[in-house]
């Protein structure tokens, strides 16, 4: 038996060791928190106090970081098994609700609730980058794919029987996924290799060619190639590199953005699994071109299962002199890479928020200017590029900028990786020349009965059949590569609703329009889904969207109304069929029963309102509530908005009581 004091001392030692491992450096807060959570199952206020002492900070700052990221828990639970079910629309269409129900029933716990009886937790999480093999889940960050109710039951029983997560039965993984250091049942699903990423590449031929050029000449090559960023924005790569290279500084950084958080995107997963050496070669060339000696790979926690593998490859490269001092014999060229693990926050894909996270802070975007290339990580010039962008670099240096510029279109050179998912027979990754039409992609993927295609994930555009002739490129439909296909059976409004909820959940909360405006937009969608919408609601949704887009501080808010605006534009009937005319001069949108219900609940159950405490854990969001979209009571009460509490109405109430209320 350990005494409580001994347990406390033990925990304190763990926390102190974690801090010491990172030199008590507050900028390594993410690593410290992961280290503590891995050992103790969570980070409570006692641990936060110790971390603050060790890193010369304040407890509330540590709490600010812990509470920002959805994979950090404030409840220490050693040996806990945490199951994260992917709630994305693609997984919903693939049957995650049934899978969730089986997990709940077999484990005897509810999603979002913790039970003291068994050390297992069930949670929802947004897209985990496995839409091509949905429905999927992470169990202690190990992915399980193509779930069925039977498979879920077998997994749940094995977990209850105490089988360790790394020993749970899995199907065979494809390619490197079956390597002992990865060992997951993930499929690569590379459906179409193309000219750049999946063409044969002689290792180091790009780096060696770069070494024969001056850094300025390398930047010139990239400029000639016309390479634009693959992370979504399509910013010319050379411009960013030029700015970082020409900003006077003692240190510079190259960061690879492997956050891949856009729902429906998973092509970086494939590159990280099969082409990591290409990526590291690209990062090394980038470092040479801008004069950086330090690199960071920001890996989303959902891809943590690749962490050991990637670390192993980095070690190998160090051993071979491809990282470290005087790389490939080039004097004055030192470069090394560390991996920074994220912890569940879509906003950390935004480059300046990613930098905040690397610095051990809340993942909030930074004020621009200055731009990261001028003053980024720890204030030094920093280049942030997407995985795919960096993987194109070695090929360009190896085969020449002319060759690359000849692929694709005038303003969008090269090939692009597409992540295709949803209602099609061949979901997976396609490498295609930029400029390909949506129709061609549908043909390749077997999306024969597509009614709508979401191009570019939640923040992209939902288009209909009339627009399938448009092309995927920066001039027409720009995209980071997500193509989600929906057939005629799908309810488009509930897809829009899900995407808006995603943005509400993922807004960092820094600025007013995105933090608050998106909640209102979501509520407006819910109102229409419930059949309470009026014609004026459409106009006010447009206005609200315009304000959010115009006044938000970063790209999340600049794009979050897109699901609403693009569906209004391309599928107006979806809305108008649910809009009610004002009958008998009554305001259609006003639900008298609902308005009274809230008041009744307050009058009859004052205690519930007054005693409401702020809870750190998300409130109970039952599986079906969260997925069906249409709600019995307002969003706020349901989606776990802990401190916004709308009293629920007890449906078992005696109806005659309402009569009394009305009379009194």
């Amino acid at each position: 038996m350990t005494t409580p004091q001994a347990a406390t001392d033990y925990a304190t030692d763990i926390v102190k060791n974690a801090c010491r491992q990172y030199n008590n450096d507050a900028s390594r807060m993410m690593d410290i928190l992961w280290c503590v959570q891995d050992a103790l199952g969570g980070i409570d206020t006692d641990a936060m106090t110790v971390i603050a002492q060790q890193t010369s900070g304040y407890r509330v700052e540590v709490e600010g970081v812990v509470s920002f990221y959805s994979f950090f828990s404030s409840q220490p639970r050693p040996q806990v098994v945490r199951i994260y079910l992917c709630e994305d629309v693609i997984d919903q269409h693939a049957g995650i609700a049934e899978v969730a129900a089986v997990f709940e029933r077999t484990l005897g716990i509810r999603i979002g609730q913790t039970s003291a009886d068994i050390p297992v937790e069930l949670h929802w999480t947004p897209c985990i980058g496995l839409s091509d093999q949905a429905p999927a889940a992470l169990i202690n960050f190990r992915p399980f794919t193509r779930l069925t109710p039977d498979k879920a039951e077998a997994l749940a029983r094995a977990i209850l029987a105490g089988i360790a997560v790394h020993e749970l039965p899995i199907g065979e993984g494809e390619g490197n996924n079956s390597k002992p250091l990865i060992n997951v049942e993930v499929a690569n699903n590379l459906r179409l290799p193309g000219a750049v990423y999946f063409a044969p590449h002689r290792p180091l031929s790009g780096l060696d060619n770069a070494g024969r050029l001056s850094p300025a000449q390398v930047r010139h090559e990239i400029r000639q190639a016309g390479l634009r960023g693959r992370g979504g924005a399509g910013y010319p790569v050379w411009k960013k590199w030029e700015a970082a290279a020409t900003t006077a500084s003692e240190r510079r950084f190259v960061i690879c953005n492997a956050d891949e958080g856009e729902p429906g995107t998973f092509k970086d997963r494939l590159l990280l699994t099969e082409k990591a050496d290409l990526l590291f070669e690209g990062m090394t060339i980038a470092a040479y071109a801008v004069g950086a000696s330090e690199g960071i790979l920001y890996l989303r926690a959902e891809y943590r299962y690749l962490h050991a593998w990637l670390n192993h490859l980095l070690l190998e490269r160090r051993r071979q002199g491809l990282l470290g001092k005087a790389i490939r014999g080039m004097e004055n060229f030192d470069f090394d890479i560390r991996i920074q693990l994220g912890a569940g926050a879509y906003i950390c894909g935004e480059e300046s928020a990613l930098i905040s996270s690397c610095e051990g802070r809340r993942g909030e975007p930074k004020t621009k200017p200055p731009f990261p290339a001028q003053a980024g990580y720890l204030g030094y010039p920093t280049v942030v590029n997407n995985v795919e962008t960096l993987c194109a670099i070695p090929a360009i240096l190896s085969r020449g900028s002319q060759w690359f510029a000849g692929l694709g279109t005038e303003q969008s050179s090269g090939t692009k990786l597409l992540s295709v998912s949803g209602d099609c027979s061949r979901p997976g990754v396609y490498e295609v020349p930029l400029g390909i039409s949506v129709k061609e992609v549908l043909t390749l993927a077997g999306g024969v009965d597509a009614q709508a295609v979401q191009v570019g994930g939640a923040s992209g555009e939902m288009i209909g059949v009339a627009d399938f002739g448009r092309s995927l490129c920066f001039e027409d439909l720009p995209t980071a590569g997500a193509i989600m296909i929906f057939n005629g059976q799908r309810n488009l409004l509930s897809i829009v609703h899900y995407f808006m909820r995603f943005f509400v959940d993922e807004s960092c909360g820094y600025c007013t329009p995105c933090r608050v405006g998106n909640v209102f937009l979501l509520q407006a969608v819910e109102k229409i889904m419930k059949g309470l919408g009026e014609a004026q609601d459409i106009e006010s949704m447009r206005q609200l969207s315009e304000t959010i887009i115009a006044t938000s501080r970063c790209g999340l808010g600049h794009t979050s109304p897109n699901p609403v605006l693009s569906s209004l534009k391309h599928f107006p009937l979806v809305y108008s069929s649910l809009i009610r005319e004002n009958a008998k001069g009554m305001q259609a949108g006003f639900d008298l029963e609902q308005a009274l219900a809230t008041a009744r609940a307050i009058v009859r159950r004052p205690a519930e309102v007054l005693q409401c405490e702020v809870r750190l854990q998300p409130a109970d969001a039952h599986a079906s509530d969260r997925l069906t979209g249409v709600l019995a009571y307002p969003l706020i009460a349901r989606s776990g908005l802990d401190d916004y509490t709308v009293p629920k109405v007890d449906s078992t109430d005696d109806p005659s009581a309402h009569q009394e209320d009305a009379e009194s």
Partner: protein
Amino acid sequence: MSTTFTIHVDGAAIPARPGQTIMEACDAAGLYIPRLCDVEGLAPQGSCRVCTVRDNGRCVSACTQPAMPEAVIEHDTESMNRYRRDLVTMLLHEGNHLCPGCEASGRCELQAMAYRLGITDSNRLPYLQPVRPLDASHPLWVLDTNRCIFCSRCIRASREQDGKNVFEYVGRGIHKRLAVNGNHLADTSAQEGDHAMSDGICPVGCIIRKGEGFSTPIGQRRFDKHLIGEEIENKSGRSDLSTEEAQ
């Protein structure tokens, strides 16, 4: 070395210096751009977005955006003012703002901004009605974060001027809330004389001083006498602005 240049705000030529933000240049010229999170003496952060202007066609927060030579800026127009009204309305609906019972009424910048921008009509937006516990633990102040507009002024004042970290945010998105460095305010090092706790830091009624509530009679409260922003407009007076047509 600082050579001045000109920016053009709604057609008026405003002098600016390198390193100045759009807001600083406008303030110096007596041209008030509405704002809630920015306050004299603290580093600007651009979070409320009420100071949004269109700078050469692109919407930016005037408090953080550097003024650039010959920039053409749209500020006091129907579309900018609609954005501002939307933003202030969002803040009024996000928290619990029942002004008649609020101690800050009359000196509250949110309330004053609503008046200045003419937010008088009802609108279609719902109320979120937070229910966060009051923190009355400290002998000197009550903390009611149900009215918090997330301006960070208390956080920045504590950090930048008091050299402490009494406040910080926890959570994210709409779940974000103001927290203190301890279980309650009384556990923190907040004390008499802290800039963070002083009048004029919290723009609304979150940090309320105990024992002297409602002391200023109606009619003599800060914004009973003038509109918010008039102190800037009166500093150098808008009359000395030359419009370009006049030149």
